[in-house]
């Protein structure tokens, strides 16, 4: 029997609702409420009988779900892949449970590594570095660069899951995420270093006197020392307050 198809409007609704996957995040079931919220329109369409729909909802509500919010689109798509086959009698409920439990961990690691630890720092640092150059235009640059990748990935992952189910793993292996990630992290480091120097110089040069030179050199020394301390896991707050205190002492002494 062929899998029971879902209408395009239902698929759009599920995708739209998957953007709320973390809304009901809690310490007991993590993202389970968000998953159920996303799947509900599809389960309603696949299971016209209330008893069958109840069983389907309970299937997802009674298990814990947690993954990276962006890559959850792939799992939501994959769950629909399996639920369509389950509704037409081609599979048992264990297939969808296995798919979910097998993939949510590895996909979370993939999403965390690429989006949270690579893309976000890179785009954040690049946009911050652009502030002295293009001022507030750095904000649309940030949103455009990041979301071009973000929404493309979410949409693509959803369709991959929907189309290939468990086969999406092979498709994802072809993407060299690890290699891109390292380059993005290096970009973040370069932008942060450049921005630090740019701010120290621009504020110092504005003063056009000896105090300006002292400010620039002081900032450079503080930056180098902070980099040393940061590598030794000294609290960022301690460093922030210490340098502010030093600046205020310098301000008082210069009067």
């Amino acid at each position, binding site marked *: 029997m062929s899998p029971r198809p879902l209408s395009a409007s239902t698929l759009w609704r599920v995708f739209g609702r998957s953007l709320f996957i*973390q*809304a*009901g*995040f*809690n*310490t007991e079931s993590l993202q389970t*409420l*968000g998953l*159920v*919220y996303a799947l509900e329109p599809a*389960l309603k369409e696949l299971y016209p009988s209330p008893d069958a729909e*109840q069983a389907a909802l*309970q299937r997802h*509500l009674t298990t814990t779900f*947690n993954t990276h919010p962006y890559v959850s689109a792939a799992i939501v798509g994959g769950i629909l892949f399996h639920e369509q086959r389950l509704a037409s009698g081609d599979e048992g409920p264990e297939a969808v449970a296995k798919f979910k439990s097998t993939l949510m961990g590895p996909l979370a690691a993939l999403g965390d590594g690429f989006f*949270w630890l690579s893309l976000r*720092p890179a785009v*954040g*640092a690049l*946009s*911050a570095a652009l502030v002295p150059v293009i*001022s*507030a235009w750095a904000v649309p640059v940030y*949103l455009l660069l*990041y*979301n071009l990748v973000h*929404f493309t990935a979410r949409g693509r992952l959803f369709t991959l899951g929907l189309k290939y189910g468990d086969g999406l793993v092979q498709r994802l292996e072809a993407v060299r995420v690890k290699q891109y990630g*390292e380059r993005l992290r*290096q970009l*973040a*480091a*370069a932008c*942060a*270093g*450049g921005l*630090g*120097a740019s*701010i120290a*110089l*621009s*504020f110092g040069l504005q003063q056009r006197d000896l105090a300006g030179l002292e*400010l620039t050199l*002081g*900032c*450079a020394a503080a*930056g180098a020392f*902070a*980099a040393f301390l*940061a590598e030794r896991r000294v609290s960022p*707050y301690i460093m*922030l307050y210490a*340098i502010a205190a*030093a*600046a*205020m*002492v310098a*301000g*008082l002494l*210069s*009067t």
Partner: protein
Amino acid sequence: MVVWWHALLTALWGGLMALERRAFLQAMISRPLVAGAGTGFLLDDVQTGLYVGVVFELLHLGGVSLGGSHAHHETLPAIAAAAMASAMGNATGSDGTPAMWSLSILIFAPSGWLGRRLETRLDLRARKYVGRARDATNLQEFRRAARQNLRAMWPQFVFYGVLSGFACLLGYAAAPLEQVIPLGVLRGLAWAYPAMSVVAAAIAVQGSRASGRSLIASVSAVVVSVVAFVTWYRSTL
């Protein structure tokens, strides 16, 4: 004069950004650079919001929530500090100054920790919606079961919104300080802004987790310094 609708707008913006960060979309509108600039825009001082946002963007660049654990909240301090600095500027009839930026950053930097504590408490509180969803499913009220997901957003919106609105009011209340603070301290606060930015940049380099990050950042800093100095020198000739 306190502009109450500024506080209201900031509260709404702060609540929405808390939701964007956590519950819906996560398109990075709630990142410090964007949310800070947005706060400045709402309070008629984009530059203040932008420069306050830069510091928090760098400071929290390496922060990441993994699994069920939370990183320090980066949105709350950015919005609160941007709101306070912009409101101080408004109250004194000018744009925010680097001294105001520094003061606001120093006051609200620890709210990242507070935001994380609050987030953890709200996660605990949200457990009750799981039970409600299960009860509704047992009663075959499927729509109600699914909607429990959305109910958990209200406390986030309210708590973070109230804190953001409070920061705006604090800015108006603290504006007279500029007249009272000794000149030396004001100068020190103004100098503290670039110093804190550079320290935040150094923290961001470490937060990038890139291999060879210290070397990359140092080379980049030297290149930028040379270019900036040459540009400045030519402009003075």
